[in-house]
C-alpha cells in the first residue's frame, strides 16, 4: 500500500437528511485532515445525495476514514478513488471590467486559447466561466490576474468514476 500522501476523491452516497454534512465533515476534523474541496448534490438516484470530497492523505488513512463514514446511520455507501480512476471537473468564475474586454487584445486571446466561456456581459463587467482540471483554472487565473480581476471563485471538484458504483443494486438489497 502506498504510504505517501496523495489526493483521493471520496464519494459518499447518503440519505438526503439534515445534519449529515456535520457528521461527515467531523470525521475529517477529528483526524486533523483538511478537506481540499467539498461538493454536495443530488445523485442519479432520487432522494439520495452525493458528497464529493477531495483530501490529501495516505491510503491507509483514507481506508479507515471510509469505515468511519460508512458507520454513520444515514450513509448508504462511501468509496475512495485516485485521480486515474475518476473523471473530474471543477469550475471557475471570473468577474472582469468590461473595458478590458474591448481594450486589451491580450485578454481576448487568453479567452480564446483557454476555451473559457463568457457567461454574461454588461457595461461594467463581464463574467468568464472555465471548467476543467484545477491546473487549467489556476493557469487562467494567473493569466488574467495582471489585468485585474474584480471577483474570482472556484467550485469544489465533482467527479464520476470510471467503474460502476452499483448504488441502485445496494439500495434494492436494503429495501428487501
Amino acid at each position, binding site marked *: 500500500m502506498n504510504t505517501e500522501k496523495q489526493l483521493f476523491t471520496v464519494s459518499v452516497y447518503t440519505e438526503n437528511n439534515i445534519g449529515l454534512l456535520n457528521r461527515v465533515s467531523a470525521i475529517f476534523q477529528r483526524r486533523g485532515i483538511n478537506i481540499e474541496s467539498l461538493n454536495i448534490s443530488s445523485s442519479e438516484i432520487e432522494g439520495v445525495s452525493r458528497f464529493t470530497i477531495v483530501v490529501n492523505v495516505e491510503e491507509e488513512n483514507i481506508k479507515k476514514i471510509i469505515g468511519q463514514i460508512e458507520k454513520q446511520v*444515514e450513509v448508504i455507501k462511501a468509496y475512495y478513488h485516485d485521480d486515474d480512476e475518476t473523471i473530474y471537473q471543477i469550475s471557475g468564475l471570473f468577474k472582469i471590467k468590461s473595458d478590458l474586454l474591448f481594450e486589451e487584445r491580450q485578454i481576448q486571446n487568453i479567452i480564446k486559447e483557454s476555451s473559457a466561456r463568457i457567461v454574461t456581459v454588461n457595461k461594467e463587467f463581464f463574467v468568464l466561466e472555465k471548467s476543467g482540471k484545477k491546473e487549467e483554472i489556476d493557469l487562467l487565473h494567473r493569466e488574467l490576474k495582471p489585468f485585474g480581476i474584480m471577483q474570482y471563485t472556484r467550485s469544489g471538484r465533482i467527479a464520476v468514476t470510471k467503474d460502476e458504483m452499483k448504488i441502485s443494486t445496494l439500495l434494492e438489497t436494503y429495501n428487501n
Partner: protein
Amino acid sequence: MATETIKSKQTTPKITERISGSEAIVRSLIAEDVNIIYGYPGGAIMPVYDELYKYQDKIHHVLTRHEQGATHAAQGFARISGKVGVAIATSGPGATNLITGIADAQIDSTPMVCITGQVPSHLLGSDAFQETDIVGISTPVTKWNCQVTKAADIPAALAKAFYIARSGRPGPVLVDITKDAQFEEFDFSYEKCLKVRSYVPVPKTVEGSLEAAATLINSAKKPFIVWGQGVILSEAEEQFKALVEKAGIPAAWTILGASALPTSHPLNVGMLGMHGNYAPNKLTNECDVLIAIGMRFDDRVTGDLSKYAKQAKVIHFEIDPAEINKNVKADIAVLGDAKDTLSLILPLIQKNAHTEWHQKFKDLYAIEYEKVIKNDLHPTKQGLTMGEVINEINVQSKGEAAIVTDVGQHQMIACRYADFNKTKSNITSGGLGTMGFGLPAAIGAKMAAPEREVVSISGDGGYQMTIQELGTIFQQKAAVKIVVLNNEFLGMVRQWQQLFFDKRYASTEMTNPNFVAIAEGYYLKARKVTKREELAAAVKEMMESKEAYFLEVCVEKEDNVFPMVPSGASVSEVRLA
C-alpha cells in the same frame, strides 16, 4: 437539504387518536416498554413533565440532582439490564449537561435515548432564552440524532431512535423536540421501527472467514483470547465460555469485558492493558494467534501499537466493520454478532488443552502475586489498602454483587480484584474515563436490578463530582451500597506525578469534607473506617443493610496501582513496581 426521512415498517394495524405531541412522547416511551426514565424538568420540556404526571402509574420518573446524573443513571440502567436507558432534559443548559453522559455512552457502546426540549420552532436560531444547538453539539458523540419540529414526526423519530440505540453496536441517540411540537395536536399512532434504509446494524459474515479462523485456531500452539464488552452486549457469554473451554485457550479481558466469564474460571487469566495483569500483558507479545472478540484494541489495552503482538496472527471477531484494521491489522476478520459467529465457529474447533502454554500464565501470575497482589489484598504494613477493601467486599458478597466504579486508582483496583460470578456485574466508565460516573450509574443499576446487590465504589475525587446524587438515592430509596476509598488525593494523577513528574503533586491533594456527615445529612446510614480491625464488621454491616449505606474507608495516601504499562510503552514492558 430536505427534511428528515424516517422509514419504519408497519407491524400492527394503525389506530389513530388525537393527542398532543407531549403525550405522544410519553405514549411512545410506553410503546417501547420504558418504565423508568431519569431526568430534570425545565421550561422547554414542561409539557412532557405534565404528561408524565398523568402517566406516573406507567412510567416512573427519577428526578436526579443534575442532568449529568440522569445520563449516568440511564447508563447504569442499560448496562445491567441490556435495555435502552432513557434520560430527559430541558433545552439549553439542561441539554448541554447531558453531553458528558452521552459521550461516555458513545465510547462504551451503551444504548441510551436522550430526549431534550427545545425552544419553540419560530425562535430557533434566534439565541432565544435557553436555546442551544444541541443537535449540532451532540453530533460527534451520538450514534444518531435529530430535531423534531412537528408533533406528527414524534412517533417515527422516537421509534427510529430506540431502534438505532439498541441495534447492532449499541449507542446513544438524541431527539430534540421543540416546545410547539410538544403542544401541537395530531392523530397519534405508533409503529415500532424494525429497519432503517442505509443502516446495517449487523454486517454479513464474510464467507470462509469462520473456516479460516477455525483452521488458524486449531493449528495454533500458543493461542490467546482477548475479549471485550461485545461478548456481553451480544449476550454471547455461554457460547464464549464453550469456545474457551473446548479450545482450551487462556483468555483475558478488557475493562468493559469483565464479568463475561467468571473471575474464578481456570482459563480466565485476568485483565489486559495499562493496569492489567502481568501475564496477559507480557504474553500478548509471545502468543502465535491472538483472537480478539468484541473488543476494539483501545490504546489503554495495546500500549505502543508498533510493538503490539507483532509475532501473532490476529483474528478479530467484531460487529463494527470500522474497527477492523483501525488499530491492529487483522489477518482474519470475522464480522457479525458475537453470539452468532461464536455459535457457528464452535463446531469447527478441535478440543485442545494447551497445558504448557497455560502454565506460562500461571508462572507469571505467581510472580505478580508475590510482588503485588499479596501486598494489595493481605497487607502486613499499617494503613489500609484499596485492595483489601475490595477483597472484603468479595468475601461478604460472595462475588455476587454488581460493582459500579468511578474512575481512577480505586477503579483499577476494583476491576483487578473484584470477584465477578455473574455477567453484567462490572459497570464502569471505560473509554471516556468519566469521574463522577459511579454514584449515579449505581442508582440506575439498582433500579434496573433491585434483586441484585449493587456496590458503588468511588474515590474521594470522583465521588465529589456527583455527590449531589445522594439526594436521588435518598428520595428514591435506592438501596445502593456506597463505598468511598478516601486517600485525600486525586490518586491516579498523583501516581503519574510521582512516577513521571518528579513527585510534583500539583493540585492533586484534596482537603475533604466530613463525608459521613454529608451522607447523614441525606438521611443515609453511614460509617467511617480508619483501622484494619474495623473493616470486616463495617463491610458486613453495609452488605446486610436493607437500605442505602455509605461507607468511607480511609486508605493509604500514597499507594500506587501496579502492574503498570507506562503510557506509550509496549505491553511487554509492564512494570511490577
